[in-house]
C-alpha cells in the first residue's frame, strides 16, 4: 500500500464527431510521495486529460484503459463509492482559473469547509479548520475573510483559496492543472513558492501540469514531457532540461526566450503541434523533427531508458546531444 501513484499505460478515449479519439495514449509514469512531478507539453497534448483521469472526472462518454495504481487499488477499476472517497480526501485537485473554479454564489468558507462538513464536523470545528487552512494557504487575516465571495478576492487570493480547498480533505496527492496560468508574473512566483512550501512541509506528492517550462523548472523534481497524447520524455528536471533526450524537448527548451539575455531565436521548430485527432503514424513528432528518418515515419518509438531514471521515446536520442 504505497502512497505512490503509478500510471501504467493510461489510455483515454474521448468521443469525437468521427469516432473515438485517443487523447491519452499509453502514458506511464509515477508520482512518488513527497515529490513534485511536472507534466509539460503544448496545448492539446493531453495533460489535462491525464490529470482528470487520475481524479476520475473525465467528460461524459470517455473510456479509459491501462491502470492507475494507488494504495493497492487500480483506480480505473474500483467501484464508484471508493472512487468518490479518493477524490478530495486522498487525491485533490487545483484548477487553472481560480475564478471559474470557485462557485460564485457561495462564500469562501463554505466552499473550503464543505468537505469537512460532509465528514460530519460541527460548525465551530469546521470554522476553526477553515481559518487554519486559509492561513496555511497564506491568506492574511483569514478569519475576516470567511464570508467573502470569490469575486471579492484578488486573483492570487482566489488561487490561495483553491489551495486551501484542496488541502481541506488532507490529501496525499495534489494535482495542480496550470495553477498559475491565469495570474500575473509577480503573483505567479508567490503562488509557486507557496505550493513548494506546502508540498515540502506536508510531504505531499504533487502533479504540476503546465505548458510553461519555466514554471516546471522551478517547482518540479521530475518532468514528464507529453506530445500528442504520448510521453516523449521523462526524468529528473535538471537532466531533462539541460540534456534533453528527445528532439521535441530540445526544441521546447530552445523556444523559451531568456529574459536577461537576448537569444537568437535562430531556428524555431517548424510546423504546428500534432493533435491526438490527427496524430501522424510512427513517431508523432516526425513531421517537425530535424532528426526524422524513414524509421520514424513507420515505427512508433518505445519509451526506453537512456540513463537511470531518464526515459525517452525517440529512436535516435543519442544523436541529440551531438547536434547541440
Amino acid at each position: 500500500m504505497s502512497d505512490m501513484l503509478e500510471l501504467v499505460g493510461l489510455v483515454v478515449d474521448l468521443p469525437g464527431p468521427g469516432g473515438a479519439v485517443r487523447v491519452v495514449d499509453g502514458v506511464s509514469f509515477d508520482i512518488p510521495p513527497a515529490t513534485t512531478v511536472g507534466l509539460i507539453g503544448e496545448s492539446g497534448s493531453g495533460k489535462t486529460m491525464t490529470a482528470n483521469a487520475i481524479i476520475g472526472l473525465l467528460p461524459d462518454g470517455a473510456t479509459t484503459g491501462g491502470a492507475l495504481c494507488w494504495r493497492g487499488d487500480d483506480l480505473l477499476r474500483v467501484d464508484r463509492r471508493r472512487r468518490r472517497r479518493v477524490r478530495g480526501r486522498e487525491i485533490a485537485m487545483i484548477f487553472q482559473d481560480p475564478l471559474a473554479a470557485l462557485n460564485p454564489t457561495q462564500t469562501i468558507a463554505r466552499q473550503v469547509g464543505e468537505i469537512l462538513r460532509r465528514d460530519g464536523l460541527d460548525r465551530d470545528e469546521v470554522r476553526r479548520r477553515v481559518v487554519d487552512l486559509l492561513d496555511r494557504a497564506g491568506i492574511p487575516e483569514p478569519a475576516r475573510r470567511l464570508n467573502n465571495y470569490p469575486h471579492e478576492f484578488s486573483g492570487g487570493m482566489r488561487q490561495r483559496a483553491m489551495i486551501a480547498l484542496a488541502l481541506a480533505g488532507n490529501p496525499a496527492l495534489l494535482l495542480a492543472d496550470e495553477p498559475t496560468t491565469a495570474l500575473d508574473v509577480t503573483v505567479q512566483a508567490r503562488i509557486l513558492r507557496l505550493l513548494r512550501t506546502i508540498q515540502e512541509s506536508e510531504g505531499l506528492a504533487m502533479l504540476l501540469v503546465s505548458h510553461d517550462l519555466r514554471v516546471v523548472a522551478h517547482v518540479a523534481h521530475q518532468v514528464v514531457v507529453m506530445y500528442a497524447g504520448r510521453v516523449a520524455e521523462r526524468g529528473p528536471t535538471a537532466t531533462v532540461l539541460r540534456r534533453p533526450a528527445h528532439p521535441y524537448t530540445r526544441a521546447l527548451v530552445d523556444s523559451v526566450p531568456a529574459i536577461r539575455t537576448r537569444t537568437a531565436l535562430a531556428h524555431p521548430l517548424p510546423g504546428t503541434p500534432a493533435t491526438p485527432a490527427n496524430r501522424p503514424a510512427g513517431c508523432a513528432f516526425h513531421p517537425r523533427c530535424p532528426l526524422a528518418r524513414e524509421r520514424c515515419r513507420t515505427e512508433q518509438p518505445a519509451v526506453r531508458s537512456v540513463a537511470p531514471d531518464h526515459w525517452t521515446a525517440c529512436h535516435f536520442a543519442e544523436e541529440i546531444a551531438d547536434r547541440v
Partner: protein
Amino acid sequence: MIRVIVKRLLVGVLVMWGAASLIFLIVRVAPGDPATILLGPDADPAQIAELTTRLGLDQPKLTQYVHFLADVARFDFGESYRLGRPAMSEVLTRLPATAELMLTSTAIAVVFGVTLGLLAGARPGRMVDRVVSASTIALQSFPTFWVGIMLILVFALWLGVLPSADAGTPAHLVLPAVTLALPFTATVARLTRTSVAETMREPYIQTARSKGLTEPQVLLGHALRNSLIPVVTIVGLHMGGLMGGAVIVENVFAWPGLGSLIVDAVAGRDYEVVQAATFLIAGIVMLFNLVADLLYSRLDPRIKLDTVS
C-alpha cells in the same frame, strides 16, 4: 440600494407613462366609439352625438391626451362609461382574482418546471432529458382554450371531481391554474434544463466533484442556485405573457378577473378601464422585474443592485 430602487421606480414611471400613452393611442385609433357601443344598434345619430359630447370625446385627441395625462398624474383614471364606476377601483376589485390565478400558476410552473428541468439538465442527452424535452414541447403545443375545455370535460363533467367554472374555493382554482400553468411549466422546464446543462459545464462543478461529492449533492448544492438566475429573470419577464394566457383562461372558466374585464372593456371601447388596467399591469410587471432583479442579486452575490463598486 434604496437609491437604486428609487431610480428603478423613476424609470418605471417613465415606462408606465409610455405604456399608458401607447394604449391611449391604440384604443383611440381603433374604429368604433364608446357612445355607439353604449347605446347599441337602436340608437339614432343625435343620441350618439349627445353622448359623445357628454363623455368629452368630441374634443380633439390632443386635448383628451393632455387631460388624460393630467388625470393620471393625480392618479385619477376617470370613470368607466359602461360600469358607471371609477375605472381604477373597478380594475382593483378584479385584480385579486387574477393575482390569485397568476401566482398559483406561477408557483405550479416554477415548482414543476424547475424539478423537471433539473432532472433533464443534470444529464443532457439521456433518456430523462429526451422525455422531458419532448413532453415539454408537447405541452406547449396545445391551444390554451382547447386544454381548458378538455380539462372541464374530463374533470368536471366525466369524472366529476372538480368544479367546472366560477371562483371562490381552492377547488375552483385548480383547473384554471393548471391550464394557465401548463405552457408556462414547459417554458420554465426548458429554460431550467438549458441553464442547468450549462452550469454543469462550469469549472466550479468540477471543483465540487473533486471534493468527492455525489452527483445529487453537486446538483443541488452547487448547480441549482446558479441555474436559477436566468430562470428568475424569465419568470419576471413572463408576467406579461401570462396575462395573455389569463385572458383566455378567464374566459373559459368564467374566472372573475382582470383578463375578462380587459377583453370586455376593449370590446366595449371602455377607454378609461382599458387605460387603468394597462397602467396597473405595467406597474405590476415593472414591480415583478424589480423583484426579479432583487432576487437575482440575492442568488448571485456578484450582482450588486447598486453597481457602484
